[in-house]
């Protein structure tokens, strides 16, 4: 019984701290006294099972409350909403953990402003990030290295740095276009950003630490508290990619310290690869002597079958392989979906294209469901892994319903598909983007 009183007090305190009105507190007390009344019926486990938690499961429940998990999550939520306000126009798929993207027409900038960079969180936002407080933060480099390192933010900032525009794209971007629908945040097309990142090259850090011959893979750890008893989020990359010159340990985004939701104070930036490689709120890199085997590297997480499978099926775990680079893709950022125009008027079409480890060769546009295509003007990217921009103009001679289609090709001749190939968790969606336009007389 004592336990449930403590929970009551904790929750009540939380409500008071968050400015609950007298009415709200009354309601809360009423519910709680009902709960106490129920608890009074039996003792211990019986009470909990009456409360819907099932006999014998009370340990799990007490574990959660005891760790302060639930109150902490709610508290973090209260703070977090203020941060989402720093991302006006974001489509929030769910607020806890925060996951949000921007509609394509808000991604028209050549370099994605921080205010329009998507947010994909697996866990809660660390308090340090909310408070923008670098005190006590360190980055450890350990494992298969000769000289393990521990660096403060200042140490890191004193090292030579590099600045690149880099596409970071959630591996699940495009999931909403899978049929039949699959599990996970229903990203449409906006879980991509190409911002400017400044930081230390990971290879400089690894050279300083001295890689052992046994080094095979990195494992990244961050400060974000996991949810429930989920394993703390962690992924890694092969040493070759870690040594690639564009792979950064970044402390500036678009010239400023990182936004709380984009990884303050420091994150990995692995351009061209699925976003989960770019660990946020980084505080440790373990160099491993085998492929990293955390929860998010195994099973069905961030993995796809090594051969195409029938839509709706679930292939055995043994054929799932780790996702690495993104593939050829493009996004129409102008006009916005459902734009209205008049017959005979010119309409500007603009957007971006990117290709993971490849280069973009061309972007073709069609306004007649793919019967005729014309090449858009393509602007080269600022650096490898930044997105290309395309520009064109279209004109509709007759009233009607039209769709603008964009289809990008890489230098190997791979193009975006017309139908979305299917995999069980909805990764690497790159079906061509179609923007509807209504033309009147």
């Amino acid at each position: 019984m004592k336990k449930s009183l403590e929970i009551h007090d904790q929750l009540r305190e939380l409500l008071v701290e968050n400015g609950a009105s007298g009415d709200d507190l009354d309601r809360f007390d009423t519910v709680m006294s009902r709960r106490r009344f129920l608890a009074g019926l039996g003792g211990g486990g019986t009470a909990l099972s009456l409360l819907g938690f099932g006999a014998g499961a009370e340990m799990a429940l007490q574990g959660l409350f005891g760790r302060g998990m639930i109150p902490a999550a709610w508290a973090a939520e209260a703070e977090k909403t203020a941060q989402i306000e720093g991302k006006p126009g974001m489509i929030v798929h769910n607020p806890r953990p925060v996951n949000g993207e921007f509609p394509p027409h808000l991604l028209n900038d050549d370099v994605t402003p921080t205010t329009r960079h998507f947010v994909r969180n697996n866990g809660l936002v660390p308090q340090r990030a909310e408070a923008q407080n670098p005190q006590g933060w360190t980055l450890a480099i350990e494992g298969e290295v000769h000289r393990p390192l521990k660096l403060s933010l200042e140490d890191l900032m004193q090292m030579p740095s590099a600045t690149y525009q880099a596409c970071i794209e959630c591996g699940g971007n495009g999931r909403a276009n899978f049929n039949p629908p699959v599990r996970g945040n229903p990203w449409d097309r906006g879980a991509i950003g190409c911002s400017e990142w400044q930081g230390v090259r990971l290879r400089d850090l690894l050279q300083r630490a001295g890689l052992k011959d046994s080094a095979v893979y990195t494992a990244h750890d961050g400060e974000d508290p996991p949810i429930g008893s989920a394993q703390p989020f962690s992924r890694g990359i092969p040493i070759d990619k870690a040594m690639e010159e564009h792979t950064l340990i970044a402390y500036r985004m678009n010239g400023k310290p990182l936004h709380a939701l984009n990884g303050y104070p420091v994150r990995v930036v692995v351009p061209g690869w699925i976003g989960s490689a770019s660990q946020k709120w980084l505080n440790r890199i373990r160099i491993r002597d085998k492929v990293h085997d955390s929860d998010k590297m195994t099973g069905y997480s961030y993995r796809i079958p090594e051969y195409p499978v029938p839509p709706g099926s679930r292939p055995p775990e043994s054929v799932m392989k780790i996702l690495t680079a993104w593939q050829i893709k493009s996004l129409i950022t102008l006009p916005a979906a459902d734009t209205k125009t008049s017959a005979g008027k010119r309409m500007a079409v603009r957007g971006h294209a990117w290709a993971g480890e490849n280069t973009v060769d061309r972007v073709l546009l069609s306004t007649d469901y793919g019967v005729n295509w014309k090449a858009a003007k393509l602007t080269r990217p600022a650096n490898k892994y930044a997105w290309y921009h395309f520009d064109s103009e279209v004109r509709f001679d007759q009233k009607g319903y039209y769709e603008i289609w964009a289809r990008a090709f890489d230098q190997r001749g791979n193009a975006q598909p017309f139908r979305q190939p299917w995999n069980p968790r909805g990764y690497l969606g790159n079906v061509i983007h179609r923007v509807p336009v209504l033309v009147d007389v």
Partner: protein
Amino acid sequence: MSELPRFWRLWPGRRPVRARIPDGFIAVAAAALSVLMGNALAAEHNGKPPKPMVENAPMVETAPKKLFETHCGVCHSLELPRSQRLDRNTWRWVMDDMVNKFGATWITGKQQELIIDYLTENHGPQSP
């Protein structure tokens, strides 16, 4: 949005719903209340409703929904499951992960089945 989505649907795919961001405190209070009230309701559903409850106690029919709202909003917002359109097998797969991987071990087998039924019916592949 105009009438266009009808055409749009000729091509498989759906657009994300613009979710309202709950006001900070309301979110906290609502979550607290829903868990606590939900637990009480879940108890009713468990078959041993203590008689002298509040007069306007909701009907038992709402229990699966309540079970869902109680247990599936503890760790993350309910928008996460509500944004899904999954068949029964996939919902079962999700449930197994929530229980076995992420720690929702307090949800009993019976409750899991009721929640899976509820989700399949209300958040299935054909749901809007």
